[in-house]
């Protein structure tokens, strides 16, 4: 069987931010922040790629650069065969109908002065999808689809709970009938009981509408249940990428192994073999030479090669890529 062509393909995506200058903008700009530093992946239609990493790893910037909410410096992004990075403003706006984003903080991303109905009507009008009674019908159907009573259309964001606001955020993204959704920490701000409701909803919507997801999260336990494939980022680079089952069962990169071991398990009788990494994530302005993870790496075979030669992301098992010189001898 031939695999279907990917709906989303990202090749060697790069986004650097200039560091601050000295006082009053004088002097040489300081070091460059390599927020995204050569990221590549593909997502087949109707599948989910989980993009995980700690703060500062570049996962959010990657999501935004793909949608051109920040302009990437380099790389190639195609969505359904269209080259996103070369489009002019008008074509880009047309493409935005097909790719949408849901943000982490549903309070910060909803306009407090607009009712839910107005927020959902706006994209319909902008993209000339529907107005008048037709729009009203669509809004009611959207609300129902995300599990909200259509009466919520008259509510303002402050009248809604966190879970309800996130449902509105999802409805707004869906209103233009996109194929591809970037979900940027969509459940991180929610309480556990509500988080499960929203994850179930996202899974249902994906099934029903054949949506393709880039699911950005720091919580590996959440990603385990929703992703088909998982990519782990560290300091702007993907250090491991694998089908979810393989990544959770047999991680090859010591960072993935450490990250998994650090997730608290809700079972007081569980054997704890937590690997506690020393130190903090280094500054992306001054990434360490060689393997970016080497200063914190707990691998017993770590050697001079790790300190000098950056490991390439390479295939180490069927479908599994890892950027580690010792990927054949995982922790």
């Amino acid at each position, binding site marked *: 069987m031939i695999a279907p062509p990917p709906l989303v393909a990202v090749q060697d995506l790069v986004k650097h931010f200039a560091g601050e200058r000295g006082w009053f903008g004088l002097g040489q700009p300081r070091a460059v922040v390599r927020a995204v530093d050569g990221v590549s992946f593909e997502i087949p239609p109707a*599948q*989910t790629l989980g993009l995980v990493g*700690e*703060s500062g790893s570049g996962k959010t910037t990657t999501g935004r650069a793909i949608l051109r909410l920040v302009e990437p410096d380099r790389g190639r992004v195609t969505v359904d065969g269209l080259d996103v990075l070369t489009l002019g403003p008008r074509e880009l706006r047309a493409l935005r109908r097909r790719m949408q984003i849901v943000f982490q903080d549903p309070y910060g991303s909803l306009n407090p002065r607009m009712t839910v109905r107005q927020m959902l009507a706006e994209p319909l009008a902008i993209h000339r999808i529907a107005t008048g009674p037709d729009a009203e019908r669509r809004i009611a159907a959207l609300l129902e689809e995300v599990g909200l009573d259509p009466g919520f259309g008259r509510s303002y964001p402050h009248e809604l*709970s*966190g*879970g*309800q606001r996130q449902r509105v955020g999802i409805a707004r993204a869906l209103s233009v009938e996109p194929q591809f959704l970037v979900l940027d920490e969509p459940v991180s701000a929610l*309480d*556990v*009981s*509500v*988080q*499960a*409701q929203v*994850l*179930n909803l*996202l*899974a*249902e919507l*994906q*099934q029903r509408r054949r949506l393709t997801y880039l699911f950005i999260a*720091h*919580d*590996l*336990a*959440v990603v*385990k*249940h*929703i*992703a*088909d494939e998982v990519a782990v980022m560290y300091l702007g680079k993907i250090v491991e990428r694998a089908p*979810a*089952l393989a990544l*959770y069962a047999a991680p090859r990169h010591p960072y993935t192994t*450490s*990250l*998994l071991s*650090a*997730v*608290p*398990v*809700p*079972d*007081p*009788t*569980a054997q*704890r073999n*937590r690997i*506690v*990494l*020393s130190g*903090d*994530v280094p500054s992306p302005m001054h990434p360490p030479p060689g393997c970016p993870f080497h200063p914190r790496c707990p691998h017993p075979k770590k050697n001079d090669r790790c300190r000098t030669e950056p490991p390439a992301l390479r295939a180490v098992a069927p479908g599994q890529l890892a950027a580690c010189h010792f990927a054949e001898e995982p922790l």
Partner: protein
Amino acid sequence: MTEPLLRVRDLKTYFVTEQGSGTARAVDGVSFDVRPGETLGIVGESGCGKTVTSLSILRLIPEPPGHIRPGSFIEFEGRNILTLEPKELRAVRGNQIAMIFQEPMTSLNPVFTVGDQIAEAAIVHQHLSRAAARRRAIEMLQLVGIPDPEERVDHYPHQMSGGMRQRVMIAMALVCHPKLLIADEPTTALDVTIQAQILELLERLQAELGMAVMLITHDLGVVAGTADRVVVMYAGQVVEQAPTVELFAHPVHPYTEGLLAAVPRLDAPSLSLRTGGRGRLHSIPGQVPAATAWPDGCRFHPRCPYAWDRCRAEEPPLLDASQGDAGTHTARCWLVTEPQRRTRRP
């Protein structure tokens, strides 16, 4: 059995809401004990009253709009904290009971060095000289695992990472060797690898200093790995209380049961949500009610899969559900008296 270090009885902390739409009964009759040297986990979702409980213990509730109702009782080492004079209260606060907060950036003062901030409590409470307090601050930085403490003592909070700032907060809290440390979501703002460092640090310091810890968190994973006993809060009340192992193995209250089932787990097989409802995460329907309008009867009944007439009409007290020693496991649920009703609704 040893005397508890802290005894909270029928604590009620209410707030008058801005719009005058009524009184928010944020904490509404909470009782529990903390024993010397133990870790007590207090678990609950946003709005359950766990933070207001901890702020009430230190009398940090802003009045108005808040007030602790008459009849509430908080006893620390035999003295009622709620009736202490301001001077006596200051001798307890930051000295014998210390607190660390979720946001290390907003809880540290940006215009003082971390050394000055750690030293302050030692100067105020233990009357150390400035030089001695500075030496003490360096010792504390070393204790909490900050490299180059002699240099770091003169740094400002913005020069440090989130994990380091949380270590500084811990150093500040522990400088007077408190008997009780209240840690309110101490790792929630941190990345998981940094969280592991901080939890390990707290565990080590607790063993070294022999203090009791009240760990407030929404994360059942954190509680499972650290607490000796757990108090579960919902809608301003304690709904279940048990030793940690017992609570996770035999949750009695349907809220505890639902919460445990709703946590996406790393140690469980993937539910493959994507393949269209072959697997679904368990969720608790509905949402937490507002503190101005708790439901009648059992406050969890609108979301409870087992609720029957009695639950809607009559509020259950904390009932003894212990399998071992009496009183070690209690739950605010009528299922304790009618366990045969614990059947899934179709």
